[in-house]
């Protein structure tokens, strides 16, 4: 039977097991919206700004590991997603973005709401398509989902001209995909794995440095097994938080610019750095020439371009992280002479524990003003790591990463690579849609939350009970911190003392709002907020000039930390 392009698109989405679409309609995509009610399995969530749609699709993808879907119209609808596409690209998140386009005969004529979104998005997508013929639609959608979720995942954009959506054809849905130009290499090379085993035998101070790739490849169990059985301490990037239990004695916390003392010192002293699904980002390495100066480096990554991009590697392994770690476990189990890993790493672990003991994360408690770190600790205490935590970007993000603990993959959702303010709230909406019964909390700053605050209307109208906790210090805190430390306290353009009343704002949107100013009141209010069935803003007035420590100044070696 003949179907229109719009119908074929929706059927393709069903075949990809899509159950949520975050979108905003417009002239170029009305045909899709016209048919959408006939496909009730495709739940549509109407956002208030297209950036909210792409971040929500991204949050859905991070929370589930499945492909998130975002649907927007041509022109401004499409360009409004670009920040979110770049966010997903930098953090390797599988998202399919469907954009409307003006009818094919008008393309290139500067038609109303026309923009070359395929050209604009090209540097920040894994791949993109302009569909010019309805016959191509079904295989392109299948390929788009396949590309988004396989290999190193990423965003894939499909641009659909209006006449293609209206054209009719008898659809032919492809069964399988074969692409001569795309074959990600997933299986680890056994010889390389044996080299790692040899290094493990001779090293005395090994360290796991895990990243987002451990989460996207579901390598949590393999990493945990290896670390625990070989007695290797674990640090991770911001993106890797949750890839190893945060309450394990081998856990050192995050490394990098705001990493823990123990993690950064361990990097400075390790003799075997096992980098898994991480990419040696500048916020992680600090001064690159002083990064892990004594270490042999093993680098496991599914993307060959990550390897030797920033640092030299002794044993490169291009493979899926889970398969590589599983292979490593098999090689170790097959070893004839079993090593006594406990004994061999004993003095190293003692050293690491001494660093942890001597310089733990700390702050000076105060009843009023409340310290932001205390708020994060309290949230963790109340949720016991069972909640999904999202963050905005800046100090709120670093405190959330430092003072919370994450025990499961996909329980911490944050914009790492791009550092997109305004990400956390819509991402929380996406995560909550995926897990309606879970507690989803956006730890926000007063600056960041205002970047996508309009999504309160989405949360209220779709009854998405996300809890927003604003660490309200009246500043764009991270920039202010840099101004304080490196720019003579010249607080130019970082003061936010004319913030809106977030409680009234919540109420204006039809949500609940609370304000807390004293530490003693915090627990009660948070409990009350978390128990409410709808979206809530908790505005916590915190110390204005609290800084995130430790801090490695930009360009300094990791071991040169400012501790207070």
């Amino acid at each position, binding site marked *: 039977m003949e179907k229109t392009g719009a119908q074929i698109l929706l059927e393709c989405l069903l075949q990809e097991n899509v159950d949520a679409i975050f979108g905003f309609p417009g002239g170029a995509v009305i045909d899709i919206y016209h048919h959408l009610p006939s496909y009730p399995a495709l739940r549509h969530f109407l956002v208030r700004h297209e950036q909210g749609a792409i971040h929500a699709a991204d949050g859905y993808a991070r929370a589930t590991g499945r492909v998130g879907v975002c649907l927007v119209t041509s022109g401004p609808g499409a360009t409004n997603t670009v920040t979110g596409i770049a966010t997903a690209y930098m953090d390797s998140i599988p998202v399919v973005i469907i954009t409307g386009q003006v009818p094919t005969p008008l393309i290139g004529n500067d038609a109303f709401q026309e923009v070359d979104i*395929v*050209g604009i998005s*090209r*540097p920040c997508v*894994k*791949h993109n398509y*302009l569909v010019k013929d309805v016959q191509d639609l079904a295989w392109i959608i299948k390929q788009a989902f396949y*590309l988004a979720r396989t290999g190193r995942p990423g965003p894939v954009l499909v641009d659909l001209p209006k006449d293609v959506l209206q054209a009719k054809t008898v659809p032919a849905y492809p069964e399988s995909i074969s*692409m*001569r*130009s*795309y074959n990600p290499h997933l299986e680890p090379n056994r010889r390389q794995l044996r080299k790692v085993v040899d290094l493990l035998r001779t090293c005395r101070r090994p360290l796991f440095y895990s990243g987002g790739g451990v989460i996207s490849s579901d390598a949590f169990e393999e990493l945990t097994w290896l670390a625990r059985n070989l007695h290797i301490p674990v640090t991770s990037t911001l993106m890797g938080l949750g890839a190893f239990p945060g309450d394990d004695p081998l856990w050192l916390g995050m490394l990098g610019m705001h990493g823990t003392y123990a993690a950064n010192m361990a990097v400075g002293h390790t003799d075997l750095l096992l980098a898994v699904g991480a990419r040696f980002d500048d916020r992680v390495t600090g001064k690159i020439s002083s990064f892990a100066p004594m270490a042999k480096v093993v680098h496991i990554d599914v*993307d*060959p*371009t990550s390897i*030797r*991009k920033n640092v030299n590697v002794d044993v490169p392994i291009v493979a899926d992280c889970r398969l590589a770690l599983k292979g490593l476990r098999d090689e170790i189990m097959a070893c004839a002479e079993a090593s006594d890993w406990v004994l061999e790493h004993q003095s190293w672990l003692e050293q690491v524990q001494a660093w942890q003991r001597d310089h733990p994360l700390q702050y000076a408690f105060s009843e009023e003003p409340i310290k932001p770190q205390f708020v994060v600790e309290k949230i963790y205490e109340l949720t016991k790591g069972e909640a999904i935590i999202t963050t905005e970007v800046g100090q709120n993000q670093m405190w959330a990463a430092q003072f919370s603990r994450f025990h499961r993959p996909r329980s911490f959702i944050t914009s790492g690579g791009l550092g997109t303010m305004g990400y956390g709230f819509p991402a929380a909406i996406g995560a909550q849609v995926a897990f309606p019964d879970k507690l989803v909390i956006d730890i926000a700053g007063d600056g960041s939350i205002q970047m996508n605050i309009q999504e309160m209307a989405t949360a209220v109208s779709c009854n998405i009970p996300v809890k927003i906790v604003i660490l309200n210090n009246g500043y764009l805190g991270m920039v202010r911190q840099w101004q304080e430390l490196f720019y003579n306290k010249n607080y130019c353009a970082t003061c936010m003392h004319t913030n809106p009343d977030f409680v009234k704002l919540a109420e204006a949107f039809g949500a609940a709002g609370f304000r807390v100013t004293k530490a003693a009141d915090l627990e009660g209010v948070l409990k009350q907020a978390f128990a409410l069935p709808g979206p809530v803003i908790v505005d916590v007035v915190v110390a204005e000039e609290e800084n995130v420590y430790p801090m490695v100044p930009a360009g300094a070696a990791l071991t040169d930390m400012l501790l207070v």
Partner: protein
Amino acid sequence: MRHVLSVLVENEPGVLSRVVGLFSGRGFNIETLNVGPTLEEGLSLMTITTLGDEAIIEQIVKQLRKLVTVVKVVDLTHLQKVEREMVLIKVNAEDASRAEVLRIADIFRCKVVDVGPNALTLEITGDQSKIKAIVSLLQRFGVKEFARTGTVALRRAMQMD
């Protein structure tokens, strides 16, 4: 160091901008770029010459391979290969100098492809050093126009040690 990369791509709209955008977006250089269809339908071959140290070239090759529309990348630099460019050059050739221009053309085995009262257009093929040599010889007569392809290159059938 100059590298010659042979890049086999799916011949579809946008593939050139994906490749070129990769170079500009990541701060790599393109010295010359040549694209044309291959004998296999749907595939085009790009020959790109670029400058960079080994680490940069390694990144360029990996990044090219990562593009979904790129089928194969071969760095021909350290292989034995044949390398050619073609130049069309319109040189002043007044009565006094015409014989000399033709003599140079003959020595370099150029073809005269257009003759005017005051100028000759020559077609020159060769590797970069040959083209550099003849161009510098012809410049003193006055070059009116100049068009040049990028390098194309193929691996030699026999690779001698």
